[in-house]
């Protein structure tokens, strides 16, 4: 491949990273799921323990590689491996969580290098079930942090909505570095 663009998906356990990549990928995903023994943290049956991998083949010579990393802090070594390679980060947050602002703080701090590059888009999932406005809480927290980035309400199962997130991230990446991916 002549050109490849690495997009990282991060966020707390259960936010929908694996689902989001599956929605976008045009190849069968590579997953690394294990049985979740920490049901106190989240009730889901399985959890990603290494990475998810999917891709969008743009042409014979250009591909977007989609990597999802585990959400738990004990796997942060995986975050470092991929952060260095990624051009942008899609941060997914779960609207059902007890403190979405704390999750936002946590991941923006952990991925500060990507934040500094101005290449982060935030997606809030499970909003219909939650019935509360996670998007407003996130915007308020970003104002307090003096940071500006897109925040969307998304359904990780929806390919159309995930394309909007990815497109927005690519716009920001290209604005920051017009040479990146130039024609």
């Amino acid at each position, binding site marked *: 491949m002549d050109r490849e663009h690495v997009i990282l998906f991060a966020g707390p356990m259960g936010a929908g990273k694996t689902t989001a990549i599956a929605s976008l990928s045009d190849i069968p995903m*590579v*997953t*690394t*799921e*294990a*049985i*979740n*023994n*920490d049901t106190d943290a989240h009730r889901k049956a399985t*959890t990603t*323990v*290494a*990475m998810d991998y999917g891709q969008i083949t743009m042409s014979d010579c250009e591909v977007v590689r989609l990597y999802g990393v*585990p959400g*738990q802090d*004990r*796997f942060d*070594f*995986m975050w470092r491996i991929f952060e260095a390679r990624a051009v942008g980060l899609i941060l997914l947050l779960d609207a059902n969580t007890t403190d979405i602002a704390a999750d936002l703080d946590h991941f923006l701090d952990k991925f500060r290098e990507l934040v500094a590059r101005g290449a982060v888009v935030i997606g809030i999932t499970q909003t219909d079930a939650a019935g509360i406005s996670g998007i407003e809480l996130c915007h308020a927290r970003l104002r307090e942090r003096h940071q500006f980035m897109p925040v969307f309400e998304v359904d990780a199962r929806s390919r159309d909505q995930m394309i909007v997130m990815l497109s927005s991230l690519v716009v920001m990446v290209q604005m920051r570095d017009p040479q990146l991916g130039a024609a």
Partner: protein
Amino acid sequence: MAGKFNPRASKVFQAMCSEALRQLVTETPGVEDACLVTGDGFEIASALNKSASASRLAAMTSSMHALGSAITGELKLKECKSVIVDGEIGTIVVVRVPSRHAEMMLAVTCGKRGTIGGVLFAARQHARWIDERVTATA
């Protein structure tokens, strides 16, 4: 996928495994550390001489095995039995515990004194022993 037994919920099981790992480390030439972990990266029991964090080692062990499983699955080689990481001054061997009741991996590190074959054999022996304890306990 297995999952009927939570190895971290049984203190008796954890104690048995701790003792077994201590024996593995002291009695097998070249073995320096051993750590039994869950599939999702939690420590069950460990015998560590290095100052490495057991919790980080547990997470890395599960990740390595998961990636090994991804590759063997991709290449249709069936289950991943073990992963070997060959460092400059030592080797890490990760073997799957062949249990129907729980997902577990055993990570064993060895220095230059040990042979990979010998360490792999010992690790697999202990993995089978652990499986027998799980079957008895579950």
